[in-house]
């Protein structure tokens, strides 16, 4: 396993360490967890040698298949086959996953298409102010978050103007519980996604008020588990998706100091898989490309918090992410690209728009280190994606423009 080209070949993380050492050690106790893990590792090992062959011919490998991913995204924006009917209540999400992925890939969506997406999302907005998963559906916080993020990503005045901020604020109030948590829709379930989606859209559109989120930070903190991560609601298991929502919400509430940041850091870095390089969502679960964002995306926030309270400036002197950003890029580029475009959870799975969005978002985080040091991009330099703001998961420039637009509108609407 010679690494002839130094770091430019990529895969250096795996090549430099002894591959065999990183395999699951069952210690003579095979269980369902270890058997499933070993299956994934064998597949990764096989694909790794396939990749090495490819890298011998192509010094730029691994390459991000931009055109293939874009073709998949463009096609999906117009037409989805009948088996997408199970996502009929997630069409606002589909708009976000597609437009955000396109933005990261630096594709300029034609003005006409932007207008069509904005008009469609307007149809998803309910009389009560929230956005539904599709036209005529009840308002729900998750598609509301998705729609607002998609509209900000479109970045046109027409798109911004779709959002009825006064009604959106009423909608948020209608879902707030006295303990500071939010239900996802009227009569729906309560978990930490609710408060994250609520505070994210409130901050973005400049309708935030302290009263709306009274007790919310304390409720979120009650979801931090003994492992260090956060669960969906108090008592449950720490989980990457919920941990992201919890941490991002705390940051948006300016209450990030309430959480046990060192245990969150430890839990998060330990979710990165030693052989695969990608992240798992929970302790002893399998790698999944979507956690490239949910877990790695937490790191800029975690390191930001540590820097703020850094009397001894240990963190301030660190100019890279505390997870292994090269190993994560390798996982995404080598193992998560579907040959015909689109990205996947793990080898053997089929592509979908959710995984395309979140693997690309994670790739962007991994590439865009706090200080741009040489060699922070795995493979071809053309693999570089646009940078995202980790708290909202919106491309940086698009976030700036949207924030500027909404900051000029009155925040006191009630």
């Amino acid at each position: 396993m010679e690494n002839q080209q130094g770091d430019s070949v990529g895969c250096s993380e795996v090549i430099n360490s002894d591959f065999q050492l990183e395999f699951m050690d069952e210690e003579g106790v095979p269980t369902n967890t270890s058997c499933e893990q070993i299956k994934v590792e064998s597949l990764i090992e096989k694909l790794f040698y396939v990749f090495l062959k490819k890298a011998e011919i192509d010094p730029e490998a691994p390459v991000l298949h931009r055109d293939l991913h874009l073709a998949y995204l463009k096609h999906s924006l117009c037409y989805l086959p009948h088996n997408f009917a199970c996502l009929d209540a997630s069409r606002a999400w589909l708009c976000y996953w597609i437009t955000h992925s396109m933005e990261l890939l630096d594709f300029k969506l034609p003005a006409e298409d932007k207008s069509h997406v904005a008009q469609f999302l307007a149809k998803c907005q309910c009389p009560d102010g929230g956005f539904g998963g599709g036209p005529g559906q009840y308002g729900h916080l998750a598609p509301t978050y998705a729609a607002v993020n998609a509209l900000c990503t479109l970045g046109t005045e027409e798109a911004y103007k779709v959002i009825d901020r006064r009604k959106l604020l009423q909608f948020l109030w209608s879902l707030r519980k006295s303990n500071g948590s939010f239900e996802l829709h009227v009569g729906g379930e309560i978990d930490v996604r609710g408060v994250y989606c609520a505070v994210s859209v409130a901050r973005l559109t400049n309708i935030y008020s302290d009263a709306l989120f009274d007790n919310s930070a304390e409720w979120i903190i009650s979801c931090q588990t003994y492992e260090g991560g956060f669960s969906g609601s108090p008592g449950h298991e720490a989980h990457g998706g919920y941990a992201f929502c919890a941490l991002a919400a705390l940051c948006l509430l300016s209450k990030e100091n309430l959480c046990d940041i060192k245990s969150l850091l430890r839990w998060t870095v330990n979710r990165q898989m030693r052989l695969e390089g990608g992240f798992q969502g929970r302790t002893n679960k399998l790698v999944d490309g979507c956690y490239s964002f949910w877990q790695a995306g937490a790191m800029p926030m975690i390191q930001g918090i540590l820097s703020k309270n850094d009397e001894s400036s240990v963190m301030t002197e660190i100019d890279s992410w505390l997870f292994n950003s090269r190993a994560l890029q390798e996982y995404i580029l080598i193992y998560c690209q579907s040959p015909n475009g689109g990205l996947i959870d793990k080898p053997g799975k089929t592509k979908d728009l959710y995984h395309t969005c979140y693997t690309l978002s994670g790739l962007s985080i991994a590439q865009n280190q706090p200080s741009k040091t040489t060699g922070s991009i795995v493979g071809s330099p053309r693999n570089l994606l646009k940078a995202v703001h980790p708290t909202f998961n919106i491309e940086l420039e698009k976030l700036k423009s949207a924030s500027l637009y909404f900051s000029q509108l009155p925040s006191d609407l009630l």
Partner: protein
Amino acid sequence: MEGSSSEEGEDVNWTFYRDREEWADLKPVPQDDGPHPVVAIAYSEKFRDVFDYFRGVLKVHELSERALDLTRDAVELNPGNYTVWQYRRQILKHLDKDLKEEMAFVAEMISAFPKNYQVWHHRQVLVSWLNDASDELQLTAKMLALDAKNYHAWQHRQWAIRTFNLFQNELEFIEKLLNDDIRNNSAWNQRYFVINQTTEFAPEVIEKEIAYVLSKIKIATKNESSWNYLRGIVLHSESGLRKPSVIDFCDELYNSGNRSACLLSYLVDAALEQAEYGVVKENSLLSIDKALELCDNLANEFDVCRRGYWNYISGCLRVHMN
């Protein structure tokens, strides 16, 4: 799921709502995607027909038996449609339906779609309405037998246990799962939940739990789940990570040549904790020098993937030198 349906959801024996006499009075409402639809799904004819009539019912706010049947067809076509579920609950309430039948239906739906938010939420609402959780432990046990880490199943189980005080046999249930798979992190989490909600962390409970988890760590020293549980428990004791009995255990394990990243990482954190409390113990396993050496071993040999993290922790340790 009645009848046989092909991949497109087309069904030989299916009668479209538009062809049903008993529905002739209701005006179907087509989906309004606007003039330029995006993310347009190529719905099957059946899907389109059912949802056109669902929108029709929703528009005139009809709360009837036939509307109830219609919502069943709709959620079977798309169990993720929270609007249909919410409307179905409104109808159930309005008609004062026998909820036992609905419980059987949602149990079927849970079996068919075990990772769907809406089916589990529907179940929770029904159990609340009935104020009867007598079937919940069995249902969740059945679902956990199929997937021992199903997050929704654990959530529902915890909710039922907490709301209806069903803690009695839960530790035995967990014990069984941990005997099946010592690496099942959900089961470890459930153990913490039960202790936290029942005996809490009285000194004798801490001792008992430490003895339990150490016996499990001995079996699989690289199992992060049990190490994390250990950390969770000792934080309730006055001496924290530095609890002497635990450090003795680690000492012995380390001296036997074990270099599990979990073990080394525990020792590093214990040393850091000791340093932060201002206690300096030279030449012990918890000295800063030893901890720096362990960080170095982790970064270069036993946990190479997390080298950046271990270098950061080394920096934190160095602050306490001198």
